[in-house]
């Protein structure tokens, strides 16, 4: 079986973010990059599936500038077999529909038995791409899985719902699976696999040649949340706290 895993490179969330000049996204400068956390679950699940099936080929796909290849190497070191890099200098300009259309354009005639994606990305967080890819490829989508199994061509899994409720779902492959936190623990690549990954093929395609569908959602503006003033903590025993509260309400807000 051929398996496709769609992964995205995101900034480390501890980075010092700055906005780009257009104010439409964050600036690329001075950031440390890593693989989107949810995509790591996707890669891990694909590798586990390959270990189960024996005969399978995992292809990882990423969209972005050349730096995304670094992250692809990690996926290859975790156990993916080959990479497809869709080169695009400013992928943030595309909305989820555009991104999904690129993936679908690549995957359409490739006969993938399963497509894994993260549930969402850590930077944009729209949680739409996987679902849209499924729709475009006319495949069933099992979203936000926290448990996954594959038996006789059928995908089964559990989805996490509100309040700790879980739903059991299942679909015939080919299908799309989006992965949620808790699905698995991504492995730490072994050194021989890191070495092997350096020699694995990464094919580069250009986004404009694949044919992007025009976006449907326009990014209007990106901004940092306004800084709130710090709260006030009133401490002491009950009588002290009440008298303090009275003073504050009187002096600061002239309520009383």
């Amino acid at each position: 079986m051929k398996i496709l895993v769609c992964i995205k490179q995101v900034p480390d969330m501890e980075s010092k973010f700055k906005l780009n000049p257009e104010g439409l996204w964050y600036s690329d400068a001075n950031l440390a990059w890593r693989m989107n956390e949810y995509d790591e679950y996707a890669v891990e699940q694909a590798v586990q599936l390959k270990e189960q099936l024996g005969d399978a080929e995992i292809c990882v796909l990423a969209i972005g500038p050349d730096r995304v290849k670094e992250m692809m190497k990690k996926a290859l070191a975790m156990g993916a077999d080959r990479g497809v890099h869709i080169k695009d200098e400013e992928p943030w300009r595309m909305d989820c529909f555009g991104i999904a259309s690129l993936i679908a354009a690549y995957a359409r005639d490739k006969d993938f038995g399963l497509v894994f994606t993260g549930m969402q990305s850590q930077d944009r967080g729209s949680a739409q791409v996987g679902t849209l890819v499924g729709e475009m490829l006319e495949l069933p989508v099992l979203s936000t899985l926290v448990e996954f199994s594959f038996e006789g061509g059928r995908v089964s899994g559990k989805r996490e719902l509100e309040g700790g409720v879980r739903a059991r779902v299942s679909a015939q492959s080919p299908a799309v699976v989006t992965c949620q936190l808790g699905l698995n623990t991504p492995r730490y690549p072994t050194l021989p696999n890191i070495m092997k990954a350096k020699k694995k093929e990464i094919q580069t395609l250009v986004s404009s040649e694949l044919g992007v569908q025009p976006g449907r959602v326009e990014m209007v503006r990106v901004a940092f949340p306004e800084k709130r003033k710090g709260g006030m903590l009133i401490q002491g025993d009950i009588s002290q706290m009440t008298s303090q509260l009275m003073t504050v309400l009187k002096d600061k807000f002239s309520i009383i």
Partner: protein
Amino acid sequence: MEATREIYWNVGPAVLLPMYLLTAAAMALAGFWFWKRVRVYRQGQSLDRSADLKQRVLSALNMAIMQMRVRRGGGAGGAHALFFWSFLVLLVGTLLILVQADLTDPLFGVRFLEGPFYLIFSLLLDLGGLVALLMLIALMVRRYLIRPEGLVSRRDDLAVHGLLFSILVTGFFIEALRMAATELPLNRELAIWSPVGMAMAIPLQSLAEPQLRSLHQVFWWIHMLLVMGFIAIIPLTRLRHILTTSLNYVFVDRGPKGALRTLDLEDESAEHFGAEKIADLSWKDIFDTDACTQCKRCQDQCPAHATEKPLSPMKLINDLGQVAFDDPEAALCERVGTDALWSCTTCRACQEVCPASIEHVGKIVEMRRNLVLMQGEFPGEEVTAAAENLEVNGNPLGLSFSARADWAKDLDLVVAGQGGEFDILYFVGCYASFDKRNIKVARSFVELCKAAGVRVGILGEAEKCCGEPMRKMGNEYLYQMMAAENIEAMQASGATKVVTSCPHCFNSLAKDYRDLGFELEVQHYSEYLAELLEQGRLKLQPQAFDCTYHDSCYLGRYNDIYQAPRELLAAAGGRIEEMERHGSESFCCGAGGGRILAEEKLGSRISEHRARMAAQTQAPTLVSNCPFCLTMFEDGVKGAQLEESLVPRDLAEILAERIDRP
């Protein structure tokens, strides 16, 4: 009558042939059994331990004969040394008899066991036998009656003790029977020179001479056969340490102290890393297991063992020995236990105290390398996360690499590569860069440098973790990645001298990086500031205070820096109340070996143990000079509920408060 005795008295020259044949047979047997062990050692990887062979042999002889390392172990060590020396006297005495009776006398007619020399010879051998016997009894009482905690005795130990005891006692009986028949009736003045033999001979005088003679023959043969047995079973029992431990002094690691094998990661044909099976370790690692005498001193020193963790350095060495001899295909990490492997803080206390010069830490790291590099396994998810943080941000804390120099924003330091000159390059390290508590230490150090007129440069965002914690965790790949970036940045910085505030950084830069081509001079701030003080560039205004000083493993045992920090404390007005475990026997804070990145889930907390040891000195301040130690002690004093009475501080903070400003 002259002062000598008839060699082979009563047994006659007829015993010569059977005696030498038996000796040859015993030695051949011992040789054969040793050869079988050598074949086991040879399973290991090659390792050259022959450079400076002459020096090695001389220092080994010195260590063995003077019992240098053995003696340090308190009463039992002293008893062993006395036993060894007296046994040595007996051996030399016996050899002298052999030389005279079977070489010089029959060939050249030369006899030297005569006159005053014979008197001294006689007295020394007699007393030697007595001391050996007394020490043996004392050691047996310790082993079988007192039974110190952790001392492991096997059945063959009792056999060895019984054999040695019988050899000594039968030796005395031979002497006493001979003296009862000869010296006592004929030459009493000579008998005085064998006081023990004489004391035993007096009651034997009631026997008639023929009885004495036949008893003497019986004992002579028993003694003879016991000695032959002793020689033959050396390789099979704990007795083999006579040879293996002495040889281990020859094959000792001659430094740099604590250096690990640097893996060649450029070698594309390598598909296997670390020790998965015994044959992946070196022959010396296997030999070490045979040099172990199970004296348990390592176990008594081990901070993991003292805090109920499943690690005993002694057991680990013996487990490896068992695998090497009985089950060479076994999976090493599994046999030793991964929890034991991950419990090690690489503090080196075991190696420092080992009387057999066994190297424990390197073996543990080799096995960890296998777990990490071949199986992607760490002691916990938090350590995997730390490794990923290092890959992404160059520090294990997961903070942004671009914030690395934020601690120094207002200090007006020169950032290498951005113009400006500096005298020293301060390699700050991750904790002093990012951790609030340790930032204070970094700022204190800079303040001291400024007061001494030293211009300080830093690498800023270009500095990465030195890689030491990950290296000790077994992740050699990540360590070398970090090291390569640091080496490039430091060498491009134009620095001539690098100073660190972290002993782990210091050990990496000053030792480990040398294998990767790094050449700049490196100092820990303790030695650097001590120099500035001595040169009169740094001036301190002493204010009296009481403290205790904790020797960090990587400054102390790894680099033998014990004096400089104490001198600085004294210059600052500090009066040091030493803890019982200080200097080379210091008790680790618990953070070494990459454990700073791991949660301490097993046993009790090492840092709390250490905090309690510090509190016992009654000193109100616990001074250290390592960011890991400081971090551990801040937690340790809280955990041990000593916050009221004990304050952990860094040496630099104390010094900075006492700068003498004109």
